[in-house]
């Protein structure tokens, strides 16, 4: 089961190691981690995606709350949050398949950020499933390089 943990922390150096250290100590594999400052410059938000059974993730949550620099921890279920991940991907292209790639990008609403004679650098954002799907589509043309940001997430407002 995947968990998306949204963790609010004091924005100062060392907090990242405190938080990620808790995961390594329990030999937890972090799927992705994304950090950014919030509207309050003293507070950062970390979004960590982990796989693990509910009771163990609950343990980690409680351990996180014991860290003095952690302000709040929210366990977001996949279905009740908007999540996004940004990917930059360099895809090989030839004269023959150039238009094909462009039309796939249109369908996905992906942006072509740069091009050379032999490559496209494409920018795409979506939830993890969409990003994976997009990358799968690009695979057959030959991917040279990928950079992914890791997920960020917000709870849906009702």
């Amino acid at each position: 089961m995947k968990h998306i943990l949204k963790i609010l922390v004091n924005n100062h150096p060392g907090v990242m190691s405190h938080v990620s250290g808790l995961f390594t100590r329990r030999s937890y594999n972090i799927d992705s981690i994304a950090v950014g400052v919030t509207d309050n410059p003293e507070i950062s938000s970390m979004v960590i995606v982990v796989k693990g059974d509910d009771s163990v993730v609950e343990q980690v949550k409680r351990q996180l709350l014991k860290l003095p620099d952690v302000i709040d921890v929210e366990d977001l279920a996949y279905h009740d949050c908007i999540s996004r991940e940004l990917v930059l991907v360099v895809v090989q292209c030839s004269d023959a398949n150039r238009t094909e790639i462009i039309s796939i990008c249109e369908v996905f609403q992906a942006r072509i950020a740069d091009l050379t004679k032999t490559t496209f650098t494409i920018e795409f954002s979506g939830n993890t499933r969409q990003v994976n799907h997009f990358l799968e589509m690009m695979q057959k043309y030959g991917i040279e390089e990928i950079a992914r940001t890791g997920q960020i997430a917000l709870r849906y407002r009702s």
Partner: protein
Amino acid sequence: MSKSEAKITGARLMVELLEEYGVDIVFGYPGGAILPFYDELYKSTKIKHILVRHEQGAIHMAEGYARSTGKLGVCIATSGPGATNLVTGLTDARLDSVPILAITGQVATNAIGTDAFQEADIYGITIPITKYNALIKSADDIARHFEEATLIALGGRPGPVLLDFPKDVQTELTNVRKSSKLKINPRHYQKPPIGGDLDAFAAALNKAKRPLLYVGGGAINANASKEIRELAEKGNIPVTTTLMGIGAFPGTHKLAVGMLGMHGTAYANKAVLECDYILNLGARFDDRVAKPGEFAENAVRAHIDIDTAEFNKRVSVDHIVHGDLKEVLKVLIPKVEKVDRSSWLEYLDTIRKNHPLEFDDSSDSIKPQAFLQKLFEKSKGKAIVSTDVGQHQMWAAQYYLFDEANKWLTSGGLGTMGYGLPAAIGAKFGNPNSTVICVSGDGSIQMNIQELATIAMYKKGVKILIFNNNFLGMVRQWQELFYEERFSESEWNYNPDFVKLGEAYSIKGMRVATKSEIDKAIEFFLEGDEARILEVMIPAEEKVFPMIPAGKSQKDMIEFSDAIRTGKK
């Protein structure tokens, strides 16, 4: 400029803050990066500095001081090797929830990260082993960090904190002497509101026919002994304690069934198997006590703790209350009914009679168990006892009974050999009028034996009992029982003459080897308020029983009688 605005150095401020917090004793060892602080300490009339022989000694002394007095323990070390020598003690304090403030020197801020002389990233190193730590980059931040760190060390579930001070921060001038806004959430130091349904809790307890209280170190930290006694007596509920909980309930009380777990009493472990309700008071279902899925499996399990992360961590429980144990018990006790549980208590008495703590005392050699029984009698159970780690630790836990909290100092969670001697010294500084005994083994004592010098220098009347079996006894025991007597590296072929070693530090000593000498030895040992070394030669093959093999449950307990039957004795 008004007086409060006058600038002082960071080091001066550090000393003033310690004084303000009522710290009157610190244990430490100087070095280059902490010299500005030591220079200010030199001028302080309120703080006594105890000079140790190794920084590990300093932090264990601070632990012994903290555990026996209930106050914050403070230790000081320089940067690099000084700071890394604190690592074992910090881990120890973390696992046993001891409030420690460690102050370390650091290379100057502009040298940090350059592999400068005596530089170690102690902040990074101690992240997983402190409750809180910080590298202080400006003298203006000192006041706030001090306040946060001490609040965190003592608040909630106590623990060690470390503050790292670069040398230039110690010499920098500041006029910020009071912390303005604290940056940490109050939940880290304020008592939490009681969370949980106490009525349901009490109802389940009242229904129980065979309830058991399972008391851990948290009960001592919460100062809840009085309430636990009230609860036990009102409900006629027997009490077992963990190694860390020893003393939280009087060991000689008729409701006491002794320690449970790996080397707990047979009657405590049987009580766990047969109870229908078990109430955990500030214990953590440690793996030396509880096997998940098998621990008290027929009982309703309930847990009161101040640390929510302990709930359902290893053993799942049916009822949970979050809060300060003392506060929770005050509310719970009036809801608990007076129930006649004499048949349960009688049953436990029978077990106690049929499965006592046993050893074979027929030979002429001294048995450590008999020796400790005698020591308990002669010291009237009044001493503060610290131990090292191994067989002697378990024998002491079994045979020296405590009626009060904060008198039993042992490294429970980490099992740190080398803890005993410095912890005893720290306790003696905190309790100058008490008899303080360190029970050690010939292996453990050599881990921090250099602190004999600290005893000699400050003329502290610490009593050091060394059970000498010329073996790493506990290792030997496991090898005998589980590794077909292959004594890989557990035999000592060489020990110093401990008595002569004591003499080198002007500490009087004695060595005994036969039963007939026990009385005389104990008399010599306890006499006056002078330090003593007593080396007691014991048989190498003596073992600690009962024993639950690692990873097994109460059902797999090996008793003395089983050991004789199977020829393992």
